[in-house]
């Protein structure tokens, strides 16, 4: 396989095409517009559906409809546009239809700006829209991961008949890096048996998010919760660097995690025992691995491009075993490696020594 120099937004678009995307609906917004722009010609060239909707509200409902009919459907947006989609996302989740939604996050709240941000963390991980559920949330830190996670997003969406959100930030969308694209999958010719594909000659399928009897709604909620429990058990993903003897564990995802890599690398050169865990799934959160590491480390530093939204998940995963500190930038500001390094040095200096250290804590 050969490497191509690709912009994140274009890479996601082409990866979706190669994953067999059959219908795309969207509305332009910086910093994800190249995704839509690319698909505008690419989908038509392949005789697949591309439609620029009149708004994000319309786009997500078109995705909902297309997904109900059993075709692979996707939309993409950035934070303000993603907010507009909340109702549709909840309906999708309540209808057991697989959909992929890309949020290339930008500075907020409100109209905010067009610079990279991770301020939608709560919005994507808690429940996109109302109701009691979590989407699966994937957070790429490179153009290669943007491609791989797009492929994975379609797989997971269909495996679980669930909503999958690719939560990238503006920097992942805008940067170019060499990356490998997967081979082309042709668009599926059959429809899943649950799909609304015309009931001529068979029993009709019903897809609805409405359950007027609370007993029925509760039963449906229990079904969602069983599915989520399964997802939580098997789909946690993260990568680690220098964690096997780390006293301080830095945790960061996406662009913040990637910049933290440079800072942690420098801290290691300076002789500090620092490691990095970069969550690749934000929901399910990689709590299992972080919980294991909590037995081995002395302290934790969360790094994000928001006010510290992931701290809650890290605190739950570490069950109060270690102090949790935070460094972040907001409003579209990107943390620089040297400022993360300063935060690492400060956190590292605050570790109380000597403490009985579990030296056998080798990475599993």
């Amino acid at each position: 396989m050969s490497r191509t120099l690709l912009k994140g937004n274009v890479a996601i678009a082409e990866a979706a095409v190669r994953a067999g995307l059959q219908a795309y609906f969207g509305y332009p917004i910086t910093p994800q517009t190249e995704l839509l722009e690319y698909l505008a010609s690419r989908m038509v060239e392949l005789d697949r559906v591309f439609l620029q909707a009149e708004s994000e509200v319309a786009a997500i409902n078109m995705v909902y409809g297309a997904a109900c009919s059993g075709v692979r459907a996707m939309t993409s947006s950035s934070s303000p546009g993603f907010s507009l989609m909340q109702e549709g996302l909840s309906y999708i989740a309540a209808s057991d239809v697989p959909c992929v939604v890309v949020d290339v996050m930008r500075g907020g709240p409100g109209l905010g700006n067009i610079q990279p941000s991770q301020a939608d963390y709560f919005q994507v991980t808690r429940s996109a829209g109302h109701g009691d559920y979590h989407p699966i949330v994937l957070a790429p830190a490179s153009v290669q991961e943007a491609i791989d996670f797009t492929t994975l997003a379609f797989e997971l969406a269909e495996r679980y008949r669930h909503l999958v959100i690719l939560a990238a930030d503006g920097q992942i969308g805008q940067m170019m890096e060499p990356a490998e694209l997967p081979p082309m999958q042709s668009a599926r010719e059959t429809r899943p048996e649950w799909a609304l594909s015309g009931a001529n000659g068979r029993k009709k399928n019903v897809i609805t998010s409405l359950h007027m009897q609370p007993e029925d709604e509760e039963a449906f909620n229990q079904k969602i919760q069983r599915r989520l429990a399964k997802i939580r058990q098997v789909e946690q993903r993260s990568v680690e660097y220098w964690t096997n003897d780390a006293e301080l564990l830095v945790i960061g995802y996406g662009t913040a995690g990637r910049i933290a890599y440079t800072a942690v690398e420098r801290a290691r050169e300076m002789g500090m025992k620092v490691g990095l865990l970069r969550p690749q799934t934000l929901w399910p959160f990689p709590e299992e691995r972080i919980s294991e590491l909590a037995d081995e480390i002395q302290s934790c530093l969360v790094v994000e491009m928001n006010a510290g939204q992931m701290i809650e998940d890290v605190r739950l995963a570490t069950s109060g075993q270690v102090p949790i500190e935070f460094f972040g930038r907001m409003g579209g500001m990107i943390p620089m490696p040297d400022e993360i390094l300063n935060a690492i040095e400060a956190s590292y200096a605050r570790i109380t020594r000597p403490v009985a250290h579990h030296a056998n804590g080798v990475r599993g």
Partner: protein
Amino acid sequence: MQNEFLFAGFGGQGVMFAGQLLAYAAMDAGLEVTWIPSYGPEMRGGTAHCIVVVSDKAIGSPIVRQPTIAIIFNNPSFIKYAPQVKSEGILIFNETLISARTDRSDITTLAVPATQMAEKLGNTRLTNVLLLGAALRAVPVIPVEAVRGALETHLPARHRDLLPLNLQALEAGVSYRMPTSVTP
């Protein structure tokens, strides 16, 4: 070994494309590379920049506070970025359009009359490729051959007729003998 290139100038001067050419060439030479644009509300005539990190190992942060090499196309960018070049780094600038100077003695400053040279070749829009050539002479991280290849492959179709001139501009940049450490 990691090198961080900052390209900065007016929108329309080919700043982004110069950075992309370097990125393509670095990839073709088997190196790791990232290219990041400024993507604020820039427009033609406003300032724009991109950062290209080239390394022989996996790249962490694609953004840098202090680039090791700055290639500066216009006066406002010179004023903004000359103070940011990493100590012992290199500052290459378009002498034709830049009147500002720096008193920094901890960096190597190289003046190239790029727009003037490009004009002699027949088109001032060759300034970007010429400055890239000059940068690669100063910091030979990738073979010039790779940039030549990248130009042949990635020059947009609408500028195809300018390929021979672009190759000449690259050559002119590479072979330009710069007086080192220009004094103010």
